[in-house]
């Protein structure tokens, strides 16, 4: 519904707030303002800076209340009594906070409204510019020049056009008593502003698509020789043929790579190597090399001698107390679950000597530790009615498996953004006008002026163009004189 016009009551002296009189109109008006844009951009900059300076809740912790509380306790050490207030204000999770998203949403609305609002005037400037300017315009122009020539106005105008052309400007002419001209260069630069602004909206669309339809598994672990299903894409499974690491003689790592086979519904569909900086991908799912570690291959038999477990256990976690790598094994149908603990890397570990692993068994119902044993290579150890045997060491690869259907949109938007910015700033639109007015003596006055712009590059460009125009006019005048002499 349209707001009704306010009834004219002369007695009323306090003006009605435009927000009450015409809320939608006022909202629209506010959203066209560059001042609002400036405010929003600076607020977002401040918010982003806050998010960089304050510790932010890691994504891995955000959805797990126990882990989150543990993290918050850690943060208390830094922020003391302010911690809870800061957490309440979402200062420790700025980038997923409601207020940050609100700012972005406002910015997008601002951009869209601004674009719509300015479209028709920009379109006119680019596609149907005004050709004739009044003499007053030339009088007032900040950047301008006047030449008096002994040429008829039409000839002078044609020569000025030549001058424009040789300077790389296209020109439009409007004949009349005086000849008016418009010349410009890089007119599509104007559209660069739209490209830049709309690319920001597109960027956001891509990012949201990634959030809604994408997922990522940062801890996808496959032991050498094993095949695992991708938990978030059940049809796909991955086998690690071999993991390889290379180190420089000086010590730092040089390269890690995993030879993978990808299966789709059990069919082998792809085979290749994934390494840091060159992920493998299949059906829009990217497999990135992220980390790696040790595996202990363990065999477990029950009292009857049946195999109940025979696999590599990736020691992919670290123990709470020390820095020992830990892995978990599920023992189906048993009262206990097992943990395998490896020796602390890079130091002498008396509790877990090199070449052995420690077995810890926990009761499934009480969660209590019920047994600790040391497993040496190829030796049977009896515990809780089961026989454990540590067969050998091996390696696992840790992959980051990501599906992001918005990523191509993000790249498209990025490309458009850079294109738009280059158009706007490196090829600025330059506009000039000329007016050739006939004089009583048969000559003409040629006046030039440039549309003012915010940068002085304009003046340099104008000087160059006027120099060309002047040269063309001078030459033409000489030619005419010479021609007249011959007659």
């Amino acid at each position, binding site marked *: 519904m349209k707001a009704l016009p306010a009834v004219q009551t002369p007695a009323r002296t306090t003006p009605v707030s435009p927000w009450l009189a015409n809320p939608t109109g006022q909202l629209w008006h506010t959203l066209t303002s*560059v*001042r609002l*844009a*400036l405010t929003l*951009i*600076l607020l*977002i*900059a401040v918010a*982003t*800076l806050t*998010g*960089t300076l304050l510790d*932010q809740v890691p994504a891995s912790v955000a959805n797990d209340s126990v882990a989150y509380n543990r993290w918050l306790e850690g943060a208390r050490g830094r922020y003391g009594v302010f911690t809870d207030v800061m957490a309440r204000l979402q200062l420790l999770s700025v*980038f997923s906070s409601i207020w940050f998203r609100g700012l972005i949403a406002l910015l997008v609305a601002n951009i869209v409204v601004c674009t719509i609002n300015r479209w028709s005037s920009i379109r006119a400037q680019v596609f149907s510019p005004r050709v004739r300017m009044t003499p007053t315009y030339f009088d007032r122009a900040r950047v301008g020049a006047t030449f008096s020539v002994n040429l008829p106005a039409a000839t002078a105008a044609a020569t000025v056009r030549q001058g424009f052309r040789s300077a790389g400007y296209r020109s439009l002419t409007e004949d009349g008593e005086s000849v008016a001209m418009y010349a410009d260069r890089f007119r599509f630069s104007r559209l660069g502003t739209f490209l830049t602004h709309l690319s920001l909206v597109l960027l956001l669309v891509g*990012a949201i698509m990634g959030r809604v339809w994408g997922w*990522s598994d940062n801890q996808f672990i496959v032991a050498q020789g094993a095949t695992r299903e991708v938990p978030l894409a059940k049809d796909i499974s991955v086998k690690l043929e071999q993991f390889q690491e290379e180190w*420089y003689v*000086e010590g*730092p*790592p*040089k*390269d*890690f790579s995993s030879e993978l086979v990808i299966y789709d519904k059990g069919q082998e569909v792809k085979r290749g190597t994934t*390494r*840091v*900086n*060159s*992920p493998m991908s299949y059906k829009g799912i*990217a497999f*990135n090399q*992220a980390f790696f570690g040790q595996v202990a291959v363990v065999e477990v038999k029950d009292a009857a001698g049946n195999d109940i477990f025979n696999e590599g256990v990736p020691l992919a976690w670290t123990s709470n107390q020390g820095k020992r790598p830990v892995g978990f094994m599920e023992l189906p149908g048993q009262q206990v679950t097992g943990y395998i603990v490896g020796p602390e890397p890079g130091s002498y570990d008396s509790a877990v000597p090199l070449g052995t692993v420690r077995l810890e068994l926990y009761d499934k119902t009480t969660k209590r530790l019920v047994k600790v044993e040391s497993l040496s290579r190829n030796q049977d150890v009896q515990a809780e009615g089961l026989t454990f045997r540590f067969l050998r060491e091996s390696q696992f690869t840790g992959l*980051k*498996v*990501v599906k*992001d259907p918005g*990523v191509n949109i*993000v*790249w498209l938007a*990025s490309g458009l*953004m*850079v294109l738009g*910015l*280059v158009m706007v*700033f*490196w090829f*600025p639109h330059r506009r000039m006008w000329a007016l050739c007015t006939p004089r009583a003596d048969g000559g003409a006055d040629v006046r030039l002026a440039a549309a003012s712009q*915010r*940068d*002085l*590059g304009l003046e340099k460009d104008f000087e160059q163009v006027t120099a060309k125009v002047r040269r063309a006019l001078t030459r033409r005048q000489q030619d005419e004189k010479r021609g007249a002499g011959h007659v």
Partner: protein
Amino acid sequence: MYDLSQYSYVASFIALALAAVFYASYGVTRRRAVVVGFDADITASIGGPRMPAMTASLGRWGTILIINAFAFLTGALAFRWIAAGHGPFSNMYEFSLAFVWGTLAAHLYFEFRYGLRSLAILVLPVCLAMLAYAATVPSEIVPLVPALQNSLLLSIHVAVAIAAYGAFVLSFAAAVLFLFNRQDRFHWLPRRAMLDEVGYKAVMFAFPLLALVVILGAVWAKVAWGTYWSWDPKETASLVTWLIYGGYLHARVVRGWKGERSAYLLIAGFGAVVFTYFGNYFLGGLHSYG
């Protein structure tokens, strides 16, 4: 080659320090000339302020020294490139040299194009500080860790950043002088309108490049880590920088924000550049080169 690179670095440091001395004397004598002999009435009658010969020659020597420093620095980077077998873009030492290189290039451009020497008052100290900082960090060539081995992407990413940062130093210098030269009261400094212009020109050049830097960073993150944006502190800090300069571009068309406030935004933007640059020291994250 490595030694040659080190010598060139030292030579460029010395040349730049000397240049600073020459520019400072240039500034002082020029100022005296303006204050003593060339007030408005007199200059009007002789057709514009003319510089005493000594001042002019001090300025010229300053410029020559900067060109020398620039050439030595080019040598230092080139020799290092040959010695390491990859672009000199992988640790703080190399970044710092490249940063100064970019800044000197931008300065020389503005000096020749607009005849502006005075910006050196601020540009040279920034460069000298950066070169001094480079002396405090390890300069050995170490092998690249896997994430940095994507050398094409890395080289472009850093080279573009260097070009942008160099221009931002210039816009910073212009903004500080702009604020200092209120009402154009210091005749020995460039006019405010010119300083405003230089600040804007530098941002016009650098803003698209900074966008490209952030985007290339995202491409690289996608390739190396699987996600193009993870709010990594260094990524985020360069986004903040970009936003501040974006704010500046809009401020120039908002009433009440032209001039002084815009100049403050340029200074804040440069603050963000420095913050991003040294971010490794106080922000954790994936971008740590040591």
